[in-house]
């Protein structure tokens, strides 16, 4: 539906505007979008995988706590980290001002540059890779390690020559989510004055007042999205699924002395930069804000309501997509309708909002008004529109989560079930659902956190009075009111931390359950 609205924009042409965009805007935008994508995916891969290796294969003091802390940066939206970092490390920010005034050092490094942007985005997106990599290692680890040990391989080569290649599909899956987030990001790149396809879309819409051209530039973006999805496809067909069930926990290699200390120090430094610094800055800004009080922001209710419902729906959709995939025989591959559903994740929120709103308003006009004689928009302005938009956007995560779990359920099970005369319905409820429970919880929580952080879609489609925390933050930061934005931002972080901590606890329990079998 959304795609047709976007593609339909080609019906209206503006050759003059296109020639301008073509010579001045699009080439840069494409180059920048692609470089950003490559850079952030690569760096997130590095961060996510190396930390996953550290916490999954090695034992050192505080490992469990670090595992939890490494996931927490997910609760910080990238644009919040973005404006905190630029605020902190700018020429006029506290860090370099301190260097100049107290230490007389006048050298400075511009944070608002390509490396700065890549670092900031990787810092908030790497947890996706980290989580996926951990899942991969856990499921491939034990058997592979045992085989390797029997063949006399040393631990180092075991990890690098055996486990990592086997877990590559998981790591790539995480990377692809990161890549999609990159493509659709607008807030962070704006703070860094980095022109990408999303800013070009905005420019067409807001600057040139042309929704049609904005839609057309969106199709350029969609080309890249489809490319990513195609890559994901190729990646999956090369995947080899060895196990049909999760493996028991294994012996971690114990780190001692210098190695242990080094690991701890690196982790502390990284987490301080990536999580503690932003939280501290938010806290100090909150206290600086005039008229500050400790009251709960009123937008918290809306955030939670929309988040929980939205996550539930996305999960159901993701679940149906996965099940339909398997039931209709697409073991290890993806049906075309599933791939179409995944596109939603990469569409920038604003575009998606328009793409959803216009059809819904049209449906209202055609259907609801004559029938119910209602004076206003039933679909368009109710929470339905917002939930529809969020579902289109985030069902992809639900699907990814379930499909990862589904892969461990070998195709044989379906065949066995068929042989025994088990109908699809029973198959789903008695076999698939219990086995996918872990994936369901993971998916629910990831979607919940993403919805709570989401801003452009919610901004456009929300009914009156349903302001979420993200919207509050956006309104205030777009006016430069960092201090007033900090309190809702902190609440957003806390709201995000709770489900993430549940996720971590749930993973541990899951691990323990298997170890005790």
């Amino acid at each position, binding site marked *: 539906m959304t795609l047709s609205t976007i593609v339909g924009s080609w019906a209206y042409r503006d050759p003059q505007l296109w020639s301008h965009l073509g010579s001045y805007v699009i080439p840069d935008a494409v180059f920048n979008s692609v470089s950003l994508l490559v850079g952030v995916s690569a760096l997130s891969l590095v961060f996510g995988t190396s930390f996953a290796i550290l916490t999954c294969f090695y034992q050192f003091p505080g490992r469990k706590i670090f595992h939890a802390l490494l996931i927490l940066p997910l609760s910080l939206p990238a644009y919040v980290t973005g404006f905190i970092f630029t605020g902190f490390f700018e020429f006029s920010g506290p860090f370099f001002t301190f260097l100049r005034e107290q230490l007389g050092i006048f050298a400075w490094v511009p944070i608002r540059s390509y490396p700065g942007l890549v670092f900031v985005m990787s810092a908030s997106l790497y947890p996706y890779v980290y989580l996926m990599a951990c899942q991969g290692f856990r499921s491939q680890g034990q058997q592979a390690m045992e085989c390797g040990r029997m063949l006399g391989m040393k631990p180092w080569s075991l990890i690098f020559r055996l486990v990592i290649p086997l877990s590559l599909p998981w790591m790539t899956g995480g990377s692809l989510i990161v890549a999609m987030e990159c493509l659709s990001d607008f807030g962070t790149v704006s703070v860094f004055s980095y022109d990408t396809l999303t800013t070009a879309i905005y420019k067409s819409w807001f600057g040139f007042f042309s929704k049609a051209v904005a839609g057309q530039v969106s199709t350029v973006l969609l080309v890249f999205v489809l490319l990513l999805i195609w890559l994901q496809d190729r990646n999956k067909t090369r995947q080899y699924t060895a196990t049909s069930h999760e493996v028991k926990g294994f012996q971690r290699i114990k780190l001692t002395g210098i190695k242990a200390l080094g690991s701890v120090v690196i982790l502390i430094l990284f987490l301080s930069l990536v999580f503690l610094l932003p939280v501290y800055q938010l806290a100090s800004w909150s206290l600086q804000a005039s008229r500050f009080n400790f009251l709960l922001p009123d937008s918290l209710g809306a955030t939670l309501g929309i988040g929980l419902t939205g996550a539930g729906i996305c999960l159901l959709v993701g679940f149906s997509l996965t099940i339909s995939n398997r039931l209709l025989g697409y073991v290890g591959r993806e049906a075309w309708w599933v791939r179409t559903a995944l596109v939603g994740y990469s569409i920038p929120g604003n575009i998606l909002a328009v793409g959803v709103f216009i059809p819904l308003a049209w449906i209202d006009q055609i259907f609801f008004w004559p029938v119910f004689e209602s004076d206003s928009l039933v679909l368009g302005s109710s929470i339905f529109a917002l939930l529809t938009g969020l579902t289109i956007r985030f069902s992809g995560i639900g699907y990814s989560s379930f499909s990862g779990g589904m892969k461990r359920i070998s195709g044989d099970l379906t065949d066995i079930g068929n042989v025994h005369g088990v109908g699809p319905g029973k198959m789903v409820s008695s076999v698939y659902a219990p086995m996918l*429970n872990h994936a369901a919880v993971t998916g629910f929580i990831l979607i919940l956190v993403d919805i709570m952080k989401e801003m452009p879609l919610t901004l456009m489609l929300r009914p009156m009075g349903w*302001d979420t925390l993200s919207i509050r933050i956006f309104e205030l930061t777009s006016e430069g009111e960092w201090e007033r934005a900090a309190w809702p931002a902190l609440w957003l972080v806390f709201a995000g931390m709770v489900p993430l901590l549940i996720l971590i606890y749930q993973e541990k329990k899951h691990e323990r359950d298997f170890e005790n079998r």
Partner: protein
Amino acid sequence: MGQILKHRCYLSWSFFFLLLFSGFFGAISEAKEEALVVSVYSSRKEHLIKPVFEKFTKETGIKVEYMTDKAQPLIAKIEAEGSRTKADLLLTVDAGNLWQATKTGLLKPVKSPGLEQNIPEHLRDPSGAWYGLSVRARTIVYHSGKLKESDLSDYEDLSTPKWKGRLCLRTSKKVYNQSLVAMLIFQHGEKKARDIVKGWVENLATKVFSSDTKVLEAIAAGQCDLGIVNTYYFGRLKQKMEKFPLRLFWPNQNSGGVHINVSGAGIVKHAPHPKNAQKLLEWLSSPSAQVLFAELNLEYPANKSVAMADEVKSWGSFKESKMNLQKAGELQASAVKIMDQAGYR
């Protein structure tokens, strides 16, 4: 464990249907409600309009519902909602947006002696589709420790080589800069305007900033010597910082005057409560509202009979550009093109 998943399913589904039906019933019940309400779609932020609307409700008893968003999505929304739109009044913060809403046929022209008397001619649409409510100036700000007033003259001068590496600007993507360049096109024509903008770009000390506040902070920290900002950001930062070595300068006093812009409003064509909308609009142009409206954001009241806040007065008086602001909207697309061609990000 599968049970829990099932229960979650039921819970989410029930919640979903509950919300769907509540929205549905809400919509139906609204149709029968009495019209002591007015709906505003505003791109002016909540903390700046809430107190004003509360005052209106207190004085008239009419409840104000509002929704905030950026101007373009609001306009798209009103357009898509068509004849059954919920919006009574559209309130935006740039004349370009108001112009575009007029052009798209979303606003209903209204003429009332009260409005015409309160709001000067160059601050309202000639056909009465929208009226400016508060004025902000986009002017030059400089570091008082490094520059004197006599060093500065006008916007065009900032493109000369003597300012190389000393200028800080906000991104061209912000509509305020687009309107400023639109004024330059109006005064000098496209070619000369493009040369001026090119000159600015060559004089930049660093990458363009995403906000006026950051421009001000950069000048205060010494990263550059001067820049162009909206007056109210200057006022806000002045109230926050202890050491504040910045000062405002009013350029173009011997030519076209300082570039100004308005936040303003217009009645939506298919407004469900047009009478209330007009009441609100007229009230907003009246002295009692004007004082509060402008003061909340350290702006200049559009109604010239109203006194401005003391802080604002302290910045001095100046000659403002008398170009009718709907021109800013007309020329906005050209302005963006020129900025792209000049490499102004």
